[in-house]
């Protein structure tokens, strides 16, 4: 018999968190987007936006087309987690044993609180009261046997109401749900499984659950067998994990005490890696972890985070970081509400002196086989370690890696991403063509400076003067015509402070972002070969922005 679990779900939490941070967004339609494989995709939308047809999974552009006046913001898991810390504190007032699944959703076993409050329904009402007190009006609570059914029960509930599945009826409750819910919340192996099941004609959990166990294991492997258990409402695999041996606890003492999130998060990153390495050596994977911290004044803070599937070091480090944000950042910018009295004794009031990660639930790792190729993993490990050490010396953003992205100038076409962050371009490399449009080869970024790229891109560009034969400054008209051919370049950054121009090309004139009055910039670029004092020539890229010339790059 699976354990009775309650799930508290705040739908569209990214929107709630965003509005809490920026109250001016409260009465406009809002959508939160995240960068995925298909570009910027909506992950959550406010109710007024949903009414206009903005649904999760929509591309940003399409969402904007469906709902004019839509405010689009990028997802920020840190802000979401920080805002959810308030909800966690509200729930903590009646049950200490809850588990954060993701910002916007937490689960807890109902056994204690339900008996105390007199039944699951009474407990759920109490829970909704608690979150309504902190200003969240559309939370839902689901109670069922097992965590999976509880999450779905919360989805079935009306806003600000509870849905209680009576004990023993979870499998009946689950049967009509489509198999697509198995892929919730993290796409991955389960997404492929759900897709495959639909193509096999098994459209509901009930149909999938009716298959014999052995056949499912033989055909779909261990991931399939787990999904089959969930579909049957038999959610016991994670409910009775082996208690992890105490020596797996990883502790870091912070001296001097960490007052800033950055400092603590850096220590946490190393801690997470150490923990995962040790668990990996024992063949274990961690699905639930307790994050504990002690402050200078002896306060102890504890939170439990859970993850579908096994936590990776990066995922664990991200969760620790979210939690530290919640503790160390005094109330993440909530709007004018009386939360101060809640927070004073709960938040860290001084620096953290101790950080501890306790793997709360470990399972045998069913394994991620390392590839046969793709470089030497030991070398990658070594490089990762020394780069992390340099980040420790100089700060996280000091070590960067280049990601090519769309743009016109050499500086725009590279995004420098701090080492360890996802390598994603901020602008697409190719111009996006609408589906169905004439699939002609469109040159991406018209007017881009052609290859080869300059090896030195000066930031900030030192001021320069581009002069014609008569000694006048060369200007570029609105149509992109030069006033005279350039003859001399003067710049303090060049040897001999510049010299005669031997050859030149350009100007390439861009009227960048002409549709945006604030970001609009009229720019012109020149490639010039400047004679150096020693008889050599130096190839340079000169930018003229708003009439001012500057040495943008040197082809070193």
């Amino acid at each position, binding site marked *: 018999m699976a354990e009775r679990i309650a799930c508290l779900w705040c739908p569209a939490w990214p929107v709630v968190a965003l509005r809490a941070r920026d109250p001016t967004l409260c009465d406009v339609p809002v959508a939160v987007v995240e960068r995925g494989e298909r570009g910027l995709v909506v992950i959550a939308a406010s109710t007024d936006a949903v009414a206009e047809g903005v649904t999760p999974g929509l591309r940003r552009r399409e969402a904007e087309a469906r709902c004019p006046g839509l405010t689009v913001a990028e997802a920020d898991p840190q802000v979401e987690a920080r805002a959810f810390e308030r909800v966690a504190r509200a729930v903590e007032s009646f049950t200490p044993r809850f588990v954060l699944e993701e910002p916007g959703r937490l689960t807890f076993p109902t056994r204690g609180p339900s008996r105390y409050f007199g039944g699951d329904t009474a407990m759920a009402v109490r829970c909704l009261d608690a979150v309504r007190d902190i200003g969240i009006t559309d939370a839902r609570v689901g109670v069922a046997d097992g965590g999976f059914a509880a999450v779905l029960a919360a989805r079935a509930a009306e806003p600000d109401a509870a849905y209680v599945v009576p004990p023993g009826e979870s499998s009946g409750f689950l049967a009509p749900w489509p198999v697509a819910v198995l892929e919730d919340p993290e796409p991955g192996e389960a997404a492929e499984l759900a897709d495959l099941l639909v193509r096999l004609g098994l459209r509901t959990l009930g149909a999938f659950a009716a298959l014999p166990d052995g056949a499912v294991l033989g055909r779909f492997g261990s991931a399939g067998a787990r999904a089959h258990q969930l579909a049957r409402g038999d959610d016991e695999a994670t409910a009775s994990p082996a208690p992890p041996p105490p020596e797996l606890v990883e502790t870091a003492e912070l001296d001097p005490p960490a007052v800033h999130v950055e400092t603590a998060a850096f220590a946490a990153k190393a801690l997470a890696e150490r923990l995962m390495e040790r668990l990996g050596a024992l063949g274990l994977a961690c699905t639930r972890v307790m994050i504990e911290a002690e402050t200078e004044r002896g306060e102890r803070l504890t939170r439990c985070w859970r993850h579908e599937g096994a936590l990776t070091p990066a995922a664990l480090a991200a969760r620790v970081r979210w939690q530290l944000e919640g503790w160390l950042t005094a109330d993440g910018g909530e709007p004018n509400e009386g939360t101060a009295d809640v927070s004073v004794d709960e938040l860290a009031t001084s620096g953290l002196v101790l950080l501890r990660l306790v793997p709360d639930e470990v399972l045998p790792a069913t394994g991620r086989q390392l590839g046969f190729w793709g470089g030497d993993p030991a*070398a990658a490990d070594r490089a990762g370690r020394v780069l992390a050490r340099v980040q420790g010396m100089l700060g996280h953003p000091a070590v*960067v890696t280049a990601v090519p992205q769309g743009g016109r100038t050499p500086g725009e076409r590279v995004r420098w991403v701090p080492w360890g962050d996802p390598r994603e371009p901020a602008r697409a490399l190719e111009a996006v063509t609408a589906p169905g449009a004439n699939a002609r080869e469109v040159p991406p970024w018209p007017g881009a400076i052609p290859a080869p790229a300059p090896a*030195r*891109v000066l930031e900030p560009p030192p001021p320069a003067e581009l002069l014609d034969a008569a000694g006048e400054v060369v200007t570029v008209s609105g149509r992109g015509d030069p006033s005279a051919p350039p003859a001399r370049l003067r710049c303090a*950054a060049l040897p001999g402070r510049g010299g005669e121009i031997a050859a030149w090309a350009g100007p390439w004139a861009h009227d960048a972002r002409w549709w945006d009055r604030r970001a609009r910039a009229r720019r012109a670029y020149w490639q010039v070969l400047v004679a150096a004092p*020693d008889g050599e*020539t130096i190839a340079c890229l000169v930018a003229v922005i708003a009439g001012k010339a500057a040495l943008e790059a040197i082809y*070193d």
Partner: protein
Amino acid sequence: MLTEHTFAYVRVVALAALPRRDERSREHLDNTARHARPVVLARERVLAVPGPLGALLPGGAVQRGTVVAVDGDPGAGTTSVALQLAAAATAAGEWAAAIELDASLGGLAAGEAGVALERFAVVRRVPRARWAAVVAALLDGVSVVLAEVPAYARVGDTRRLLARARERGAVLVAMGPWPAEAALRLRAGGSVWRGLDAGAGVLVERDQRVHVDGRGAAARDHVALVEAG
């Protein structure tokens, strides 16, 4: 033949010593293995440099555990030459890093030089006081380290870095005035650009002159390196 023979000997020792798991027998085993390891000749511990630059280098490669000093006036091609050495490391599936005193390295140019950008880290705006410590840290785990040398680098620091590179088998590419010894000194001697005219065309390719100086490179001065853009 000799090496095969010693291998066989090691295996016998290992079998005899395995049942005893105490520290002393393990240490003994390790020592034996170390002595019996086949000799690695210095010329085998190299990083092959592909392309035209490799053709200029002695043996078409740079020695691991040495310093390659790359020097030249601004605009003469120092950075491009150094990036080709980084590309050699990433092409071999290894890692490269660059240390900058400012933040001017062109990421796009690195990609065009053949550097695999996901294995190429750049440390930007290194404070001069921590320069030597950062270079030393990177030499620990990265095969090729491109380091801009500050104008007044201490000779003591550079000697220590030289020793660190030798110990770790990494290649330190020093960009700028390198006051200590270097196994190889490359000097970028300017380039002839093609494709650009008075008011027409666009930079297309260049002939990069590189002077190579160092052991086994006496006859290789003043050779032109064609670098297609």
